[in-house]
């Protein structure tokens, strides 16, 4: 199989990577780029553990052929959160509220929370639940995750907001 090369901005850094075009983005991230923070849960788009953000939109990286991610795309994985004030705030809010139990869903959960908060939505239980509807926590620890998102929203930096 011929391989293709794509150059993306991953967690703020330009990276070029070569892979067969239909390789799942999940595998390119974990194996080619050794960004193993992103987890594989179900492998069929149900659980959200493999969630990453591409150009502001959350996707499940297990259902995305990496070749479909265009050159120049900005990809955020859980490893990139510590780069921004909002990302660090969010990580600390999860810690403070005890939002992680076994932790396997947390990388995807955090990315969904981050994409949600960047849109500066109305913060309600309903809107938080809707934004995390594609992320399943096998420990069923949803209450503390919702608490963490609310806590982060209260102090969310104004310059980490995008228009939807």
């Amino acid at each position: 199989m011929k391989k293709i090369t794509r150059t993306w901005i991953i967690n703020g850094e330009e990276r070029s990577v070569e892979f067969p075009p239909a390789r799942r983005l999940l595998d390119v991230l974990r194996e080619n780029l050794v960004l193993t923070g992103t987890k594989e849960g179900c492998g069929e788009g149900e659980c959200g553990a493999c969630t990453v953000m591409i150009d502001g939109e959350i996707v499940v990286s297990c259902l995305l052929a990496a070749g479909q991610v265009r050159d120049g795309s900005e990809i955020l994985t859980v490893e990139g959160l510590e780069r921004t004030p909002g990302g660090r705030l969010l990580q600390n809010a999860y810690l403070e509220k005890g939002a992680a139990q076994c932790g396997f869903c947390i990388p995807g959960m955090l990315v969904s929370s981050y994409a949600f908060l960047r849109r500066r939505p109305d913060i309600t239980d309903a809107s938080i639940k809707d934004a995390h509807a594609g992320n399943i926590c096998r420990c069923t620890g949803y209450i503390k995750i919702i608490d963490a998102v609310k806590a982060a929203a209260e102090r969310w930096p104004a310059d980490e907001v995008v228009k939807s």
Partner: protein
Amino acid sequence: MTAMESIDIAFPQTLPEALALMADEATRGQPLAGGTDLMVQWESGVRPPPARAIDIKHLHELHEISETHDELVIGGAVTHAHLRRTAMIRHYAPALAEAAATVGGGQIQAMGTIAGSIANASPAGDLAPSLLAADARVVVASVRGERNLSLQSFIRGYRKIDLAPDELIVRFVIPVKKPTEREQFRKLGPRAAQAISKIMGSYRGEIRDGTITRFSVALGSVAPTAVRLPDVEALVVGRTLDAALLDEAERCAAASVKPITDIRSTAEYRQWVSGRLIRGFLEHVGADN
């Protein structure tokens, strides 16, 4: 390397390039946009991965959202996330926006496309009922030219659509909801997100001077395809909405669907709920009228 990784993907930059690839058997491939249905089928082995796929996700011609005259035009690669967020769609085709907001979770909504949902042609696809109830049309293209068909005739049967091997779905044309009309999408499933519907439906209707002047309704997961309910429509249009008509319409709806029992629900439940959904839609169009 997995079987799926052996798929050769072509990356045309424009719609004409994509159509040219589709025109030639040697370069033709499975059109691939959001991948939320196809990737699952290929990875699980439900369908064998094709030798070739053609990436149409980013073709700018398939991302149009516009309103002309009395119609909304929505490009085939517009995602569910954009359907639910775009003010123009929420205003002129609110039931479609509501339906898009119930598909999967945020990730699936950001990936899956309107054309993909229709092309997958599952009776449980959430977008078909609201498009059918709005009398939507679909435009398909090939190097031979465009065809403009009613969605109702485009959906041919269980997982079957009227698409030639060299054609792509390009856009949907949807008559806008008039200010005097109402519409609503409703869905029943085991949980709100990430669950395939037991049954879902949508209507567009209008009452003038106490008389029902329009009632277009479609249900999903009650037949091999999403279906309009012409018997119910004929029954209620021209009538006054009252308790007797609600009872009649509920019975008529239950009698006019032939659902099956499968892993998600039973025929009996789906038949009963079909009647209740129709009653609910009539109450919705009649509220404060």
